[in-house]
C-alpha cells in the first residue's frame, strides 16, 4: 500500500502510510489503542475505504476488485461475535456456503479442536473455543491472506499460547498472515516482520531482530559484589553508560560488548560474581521508546 490516509471527522486515523507485506510471512501490526491499527486492516480487508492512496492486495486493487478479494481474504474481526444461538457446525456450514471453493469444514473441526463442540451453541463456548471458531471461519474460504485482529485479547495465558501455535500452523500451510496485536510478547514470538504504528503513522518497520538490534539498544547488567568493591572503577569503560549500587547489588547499563568489557574488568580484580546476568531491551521497551506511551491495555 502506498501513501494511504484516512480521516474520521477531526481525527486523522491514518497519515500517509506506505508498507509492503511479503507473501507467506506473518506480518505484525502493533501499536497502542487508537493508533489506527484496526482502520489499517479494515482498509486492507476492503471493509472501509481510504480517503487517498493506493492499495493492492494479492496483486488486486482493493477497491476495484473488492468482490473478488472477498473470496481470497479471510478475516477475524476484533470483538466481533456470532449469534448466541448458532451452533459451531451451523456457523461453519453457513460461512462455507458463501464461497465458491471453500475449505471443507469437517477437517477444520478437527484442526481447531472443535469436534467435541460441534453441536454446542456459540453462546456456551469458552473464550478460547470462540477464538478457535473465529480462526476456523477466517480460514473457511481457503484464503491466501488471513487478517487476525486482536486475536488473543481477553484470553488467558494458556489459551493465548495455544493460539500462537495455531497461527504458526496457518503460516506453515503457506498462507500470509497479518496479525494485529498490542501484546509485544506475541509479536516478538510470532512475527517475521512488524510495523509499529502510532498516531496514524508508521514509527518503525522491519524484522523483529532488526528493531531490537540497533545502536540505541540498551543492555542492563547486574551482579552482587562485596562492600569493598569500588563500582566507580567500571565507569569510563568502553560502552558503559551508568553504574549504580543498591546494597550489594551492582547495576550497569550500557551498549555494545558490555558483558565482555565488565567481566574482563572484574577478572582483573580477581572477582567472579556467580550471579552476573544481562538483560536486553525487549520489544516492549522499543515500543515504548517509539510511541512514547505506556501500553494502554
Amino acid at each position, binding site marked *: 500500500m502506498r501513501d494511504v490516509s484516512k480521516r474520521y471527522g477531526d481525527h486523522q486515523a491514518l497519515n500517509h502510510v506506505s508498507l509492503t507485506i511479503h507473501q507467506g510471512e506473518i506480518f505484525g501490526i502493533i501499536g497502542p489503542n487508537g493508533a489506527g491499527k484496526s482502520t489499517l486492516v479494515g482498509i486492507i480487508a476492503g471493509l472501509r475505504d481510504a480517503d487517498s492512496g493506493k492499495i493492492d492486495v494479492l496483486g488486486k486493487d482493493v477497491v476495484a476488485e473488492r468482490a473478488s478479494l472477498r473470496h481470497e481474504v479471510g478475516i477475524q474481526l476484533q470483538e466481533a461475535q*456470532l449469534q448466541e444461538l*448458532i451452533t459451531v457446525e451451523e456457523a461453519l456450514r453457513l*460461512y462455507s456456503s458463501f464461497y465458491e471453493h471453500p475449505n471443507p469444514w469437517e477437517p477444520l473441526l478437527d484442526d481447531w479442536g472443535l469436534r467435541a463442540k460441534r453441536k454446542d451453541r456459540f453462546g456456551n463456548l469458552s473464550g478460547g473455543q470462540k477464538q478457535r471458531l473465529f480462526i476456523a471461519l477466517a480460514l473457511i474460504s481457503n484464503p491466501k491472506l488471513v487478517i487476525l485482529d486482536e486475536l488473543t485479547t481477553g484470553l488467558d495465558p494458556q489459551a493465548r499460547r495455544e493460539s500462537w501455535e495455531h497461527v504458526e500452523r496457518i503460516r506453515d500451510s503457506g498462507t500470509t498472515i497479518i496479525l494485529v496485536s498490542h501484546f509485544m510478547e506475541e509479536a516478538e514470538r510470532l512475527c517475521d516482520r512488524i510495523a509499529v504504528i502510532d498516531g496514524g503513522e508508521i514509527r518503525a518497520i522491519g524484522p523483529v531482530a532488526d528493531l531490537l538490534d540497533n545502536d540505541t539498544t540498551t543492555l542492563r547488567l547486574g551482579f552482587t559484589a562485596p562492600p569493598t568493591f569500588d563500582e566507580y572503577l567500571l565507569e569510563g569503560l568502553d560502552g558503559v553508560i551508568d553504574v549504580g549500587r543498591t546494597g550489594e547489588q551492582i547495576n550497569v547499563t550500557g551498549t555494545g560488548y558490555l558483558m565482555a568489557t565488565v567481566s574482563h574488568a572484574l577478572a582483573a580484580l580477581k572477582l567472579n560474581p556467580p550471579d552476573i546476568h544481562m538483560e536486553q531491551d525487549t520489544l516492549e521497551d522499543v515500543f515504548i521508546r517509539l510511541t512514547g506511551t505506556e501500553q494502554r491495555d
Partner: protein
Amino acid sequence: MRGLRMLTLSEFKLFIREPAAAFFTLAFPLILLFVFGSIFGNDRDPDFGNWGAADVMVQGYIGLIIGTVAFMGIPVTIGSYRQYGILKWLRATPVTSPTVIVAHIIVNGIVTGMGTMLLLIVGRLVYGLRTPEAPFALVGAWLLSYLSFSVVGFTLAGIFSTARTAQAVGSAIYFPQMFLSGASFPRELFPDGLERATRFLPMTQINILVSDLWRGDGLNWIAVMSLSLIGMAAAVIAFRYFRCE
C-alpha cells in the same frame, strides 16, 4: 443463491430458538383472541356490519402480527447483529447486504405467515370464524402489508445504531398504532372524532385493506397506494443509510 438459501435457513433456525420472538408472533395473538373472544363471542352484530366480534378482531390481528414483527422484531434483531459485529463479519464475506436483508425478510415473512395461519385456524375451530369473501386478494393484501412494514423495520434498524434505540423508536411507533389502528380494538367502537383522527395511521391502512377484502367491501385503493408509498420511501432511505457497523 446458495448463500441466500443457507442464510435464510440458518436465520429461520435461530428465530425458532428465540422464545420471546416465537411468543410474540405465534402465541400473543392467540391469547388476545381467547381473552376478547371469551368476552365478546362471535355472534353476528349489526355494529360490525353483521360480522361477529371475533371475526372483526382477527381481521385486525393480521395487521398486529405484521406490526409486531416489523417494528419490534426486525429492528431489535438487526440492531443487535450490528452491535455484536455480526453484520460486519458478513460484510467481510462475499455475501452482499441485499442478500442479508432479503434473507431476513423471507424468514420474518414465513414466521408472520405461520402466526397468521395459526390464528386463523384456531379462530375457525374455536369461534367459527367466517370465510373471507376475497381470500386470494387477501393473500396479496397481506403480502403488500408485510413487505411495506418489514422494509420500514429495516429502515429503523439501519438508521438507529444500537438495538436499544431501535427498540425504543420501534415501540414508539408500534404501541400507539396497536391501540389506535383497530389492530387490537375494533375501530367501529371508536367515537367519531377518534375514528377520523386515526384513519390515516399506516397500521389502520392495513386494517382497512384487510377487513374490506374479508367482508367483501372491495379493494381500498387509498390503503394500497399508501402502503406501497410507505414501503418504497422506506426502501430508498434504507438503501441510502443502512450501515453495517
